[in-house]
């Protein structure tokens, strides 16, 4: 029997915050309160981003593999789930049931793709895997783009049934809670430890009896499943699904959320996803007309500055002096009892974008050409 008082509330603070948020706004909506349409749309967008970031963080932050094709899984989910809802509409109406069925089927379809893309992940590492995932995303995009207008709508896009906008965001937030629960529970278990162990040292993980194949596939599958769910949600939130949306640019946007949130930090991913989506949407409304182009510029500049600030070796001393992330940690994490399972936060460098196998500029140089003495002699 689990003792009630042994539950550490601060480990579940993320549920509490999101749950309360959902509850408050849900009650208002269900009691007949009406929100501004743009606000509803923002809520849905944030929920979608958070689900995407959470699911990607499982692969990038915890498994330590770089994936640039997350939007591809989302695309599969959006099309398959959306199409199912279209087919079901005459049968069971555009109610909750068709949404739920769409979510399940869309998620499963994406999960199958996750297994497929997980297979090269067993053989490839680092940049090579990154380009394969990127290629996967582009393939999916291109395949759906060229479908006929009767099947998936082709370049015009697939129209999805209109779900009552006023309640959709409640669903979206409930799905965020579900994603969070599944991924966090997975990570905070022996299975999650196995996944982090593979990230930290694959060879040692194998020697410890961990079935690396199984866990890599599992991580990719779970991650893809939730990306698919986010896709279905997107298809309902947006009314139409157009495959052009799911290019590698979108995958990179999700990756940026995970990276800025701190690799292997669940709460960090959530906050970064919500914040970036919020800022992007707000900037888009503030900067209109001629100023609209400034949005991308600002985003780019901020991104570069944040990454350099956080990572430049030369700024290390400065960072230690003004340590924002420690402040963050203090707010989010629990210093009192570190024994309880929490997220294994990783440093940035756990994801090898550089492969262990050393690449070399090769033009068949003979060994003597590389004779160090000759180089040195020439210098004098």
């Amino acid at each position: 029997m689990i003792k009630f008082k042994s539950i550490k509330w601060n480990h579940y603070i993320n549920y509490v915050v999101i749950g309360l948020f959902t509850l408050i706004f849900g009650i208002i909506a269900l009691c007949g309160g009406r929100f501004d349409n743009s606000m509803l749309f923002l809520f849905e967008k944030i929920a979608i981003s958070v689900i995407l970031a959470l699911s990607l963080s499982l692969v990038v932050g915890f498994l330590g593999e770089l994936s640039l094709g997350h939007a591809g899984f989302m695309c599969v989910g959006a099309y398959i789930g959306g199409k199912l809802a279209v087919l079901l509409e005459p049968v069971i109406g555009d109610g909750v049931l068709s949404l739920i069925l769409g979510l399940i089927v869309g998620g499963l379809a994406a999960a199958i793709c996750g297994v497929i893309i997980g297979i090269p992940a067993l053989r490839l590492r680092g940049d090579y895997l990154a380009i394969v995932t990127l290629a996967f995303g582009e393939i999916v995009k291109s395949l759906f783009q060229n479908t006929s207008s009767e099947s998936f709508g082709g370049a015009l896009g697939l129209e999805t049934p209109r779900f009552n906008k006023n309640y959709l965001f409640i669903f979206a937030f409930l799905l965020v809670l579900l994603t969070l629960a599944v991924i966090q529970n997975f990570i905070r278990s022996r299975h999650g430890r196995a996944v982090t162990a593979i990230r930290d040292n694959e060879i040692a993980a194998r020697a410890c009896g961990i079935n690396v194949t199984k866990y890599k596939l599992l991580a990719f599958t779970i991650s893809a499943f939730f990306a698919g769910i986010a896709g279905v949600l997107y298809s309902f939130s947006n009314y139409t699904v157009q495959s052009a949306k799911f290019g590698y640019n979108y995958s990179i946007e999700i990756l940026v959320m995970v990276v800025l949130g701190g690799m292997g930090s669940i709460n960090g991913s959530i906050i970064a996803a919500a914040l970036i989506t919020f800022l992007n949407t707000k900037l888009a409304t503030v900067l209109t007309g001629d100023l609209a182009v400034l949005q991308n510029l600002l985003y780019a500049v901020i991104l570069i500055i944040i990454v350099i600030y956080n990572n430049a070796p030369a700024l290390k001393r400065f960072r230690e002096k003004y340590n924002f992330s420690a402040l963050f940690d203090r707010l989010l994490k629990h210093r009192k009892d570190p024994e309880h399972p929490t997220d294994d936060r990783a440093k940035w460098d756990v994801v090898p974008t550089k492969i262990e196998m050393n690449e070399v500029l090769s033009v068949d140089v003979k060994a003597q050409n590389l004779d160090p003495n000759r180089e040195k002699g020439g210098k004098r």
Partner: protein
Amino acid sequence: MEVILSTLINGLSLGGIYAMIALGYTMVYGIAKMLNFAHGDIIMVGGYVIYVSMALGNPLLAILFAVVFCVLLGMTIEKIAYKPLRGASPLAVLITAIGVSYLLQSLAQIIFGSASKMVTVYEFGMVQFLGVNVQVSALVTLGITVVVMIALTLFVKCTRLGRAMIAVSEDKGAAQLMGINVNGIITVTFAIGSALAALAGLFYLLKAPSISNTLGAMPGIKAFTAAVIGGIGSIPGAMLGGILLGVVECISYKITAIAPYTDAIEFSILIIILLVRPTGFLGKKRREKV
């Protein structure tokens, strides 16, 4: 027969462009060990510089300007965005490169607007070649790429600087101990890569005389794919991968049934090749020591 020959020539010419860009990826990867995601956008910058300097009326001068501008830009980007992160995690550098890519695209959009601009560098027309009608521009592209590649290979193989580049790519630390200026080599690499990208920009304008701020995005990704197919870090590999991809693309476009799926086919080839040869055609593999 004629169709096959002309497709092949077009394919080789497109492949030459891809190879040109892929060389930039592969050299930067081999030496700085980073994926320069902004590389594709240098092509776009090169195109715009040609567009602007065509006002002078002299195409050769415009090309020269484009190359010089892109070289300076490449070196500046390296200095401002990548150099502070030397020694930091590769992922941080990757994200910065993505940021730089966004930055270049949005700057171009601010300066030139998002509508595409028309620019004609030079009217080449068509010519009879081996019994088929081909675009002269395709032949010119092919010719220049061949010359550039030979020059580059000789440069890396035979000059002191080129050999120093190989040394840095083999082992940065050891190269430094041997008195090679590693930072300088990295800057030179970026300069060469950017010059090649500027030329690629020119070739794109010869192919289709319109330019927009996303001109470099897809060619960048394709060339990256080509570099990986050939084995990233390998110079002949980049050439091989680029030409393979270009030929495949042109053939696929010619066959009506699969033409819309060209992108998908190219990326599928990448996945299949990597599954068979995890380090590409000519990539070197070093086993991690247990």
